[in-house]
């Protein structure tokens, strides 16, 4: 291998690198380059997220494996309840959600980074906030339903997660602020009705809501404050929820 390959040559190898499909010497060369090249690092992380999605399954670990892992730690193993905390979903569904979670988590990462760029105070508030913690628990739970509200042109993207108990969290940080006298409003759409799930204000961030009926889709509108009972606006963004 020729020594000292440049950005262009090494960037061509990033896909293979993410799949562990390079030789050891190349891996070392690429990783040294990643340490200094932000562009390649960004691309490499995107490839890794896809690679992880390729590796996602809904397999059950064999009985007794945790006990063997715990036994090789230094101290006494803690008790572990391996039973799921919620009802089990059909395997097909769990698999789909797990894949969706990978993509959604990538989005959440951006959210955190964006905020860090703004003000540290915001970041601290987000991390300390009980609401943020509850939302992250819901995000990590494979039994939660996840979706992204999108505008037709793709400029508005609002991740949403609804846990098994029907509590939903809207990660609305990146919505543009509305002018005075306007408010965002969230709607739940089922086969035969549309209900308001909440009036979010002109500058929502992380919002919790209750999904009280069986909802197939969510929609977001821009309304006159203080919100309306029946919307006549076309939705700014919509999401179909996975069943």
């Amino acid at each position, binding site marked *: 291998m020729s020594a000292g390959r440049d950005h262009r040559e090494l960037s061509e190898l990033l896909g*293979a690198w993410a799949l562990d499909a390079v030789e050891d010497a190349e891996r070392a060369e690429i990783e040294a380059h990643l340490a200094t090249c932000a562009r390649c690092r960004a691309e490499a992380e995107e490839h890794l997220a896809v690679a992880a999605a390729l590796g996602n399954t809904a397999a059950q670990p064999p009985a007794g494996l945790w006990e063997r*892992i*715990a036994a090789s730690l230094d*101290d006494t193993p803690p008790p572990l309840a391996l039973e799921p905390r919620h009802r089990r979903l059909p395997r097909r569904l769990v698999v789909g959600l797990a*894949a969706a979670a*990978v993509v959604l988590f990538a989005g959440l990462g951006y959210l*955190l980074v964006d905020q860090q760029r703004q003000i540290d105070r915001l970041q601290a508030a987000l991390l300390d906030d009980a609401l943020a913690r509850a939302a992250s628990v819901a995000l990590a739970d494979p039994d939660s339903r996840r979706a992204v509200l999108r505008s037709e042109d793709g400029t508005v993207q609002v991740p949403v997660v609804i846990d098994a108990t029907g509590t939903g969290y809207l990660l609305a940080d990146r919505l543009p602020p509305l002018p005075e006298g306007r408010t965002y409003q969230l709607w739940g759409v089922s086969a035969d009705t549309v209900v308001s799930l909440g009036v979010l204000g002109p500058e929502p961030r992380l919002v919790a809501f209750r999904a009280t009926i069986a909802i197939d889709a969510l929609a977001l509108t821009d309304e006159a404050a203080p919100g309306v009972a029946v919307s006549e606006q076309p939705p700014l963004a919509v999401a179909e929820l996975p069943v």
Partner: protein
Amino acid sequence: MGRRDDVTELGDAALVVAIGRYRQDALAEAYRRHGGAVFGLARRLLGDPHRAEEVTQEVFLRLWDRPDRYDAERGSLRSFLLVTCHGRAVDLLRADGSRREREDRTAQQAAGEPYDLEREVWDMALADSVRDALGELPEPERRAIELAYYGGRTYREVAELLDAPEGTVKSRIRSGLRRMRAVLAESGIGEAR
């Protein structure tokens, strides 16, 4: 529920912080959430459940010893553990020459015909949405990614198997992953209009 130190209430990032404080209950919770996925990937690559268990054990011991390696801003804990698992399983495959030889012969036969690695790959249940995204790729990109990721081969080995130039295989893998990312972002998160 709701106790502040109840690890089952923590998000993955906070869970890893707790692991860094040597809390075994936090590692147990990480295993509860992701142990099945890690084991499933190891078994798919290695075939042998016993070796898959060893790799799974290694992955979680590595998390216990070096929780600082996980950077929450770069992605989910699940992704991090699966990437670790894949790397370790591939190391084992490459150290195992006899198995590789046998597989290469099978793959070489398959490479000439309408491609048949699918059977082998999809034996283990594969995420439906990922399979769909992979299925939407142009055939040459899909083959290259499958041989590399599920077969644990280097792009050079893939190039030989497919009788294609190395540079072509590199770029097929790269563009295939980009395309999959776009498809997953659309379909994985539910239908948007």
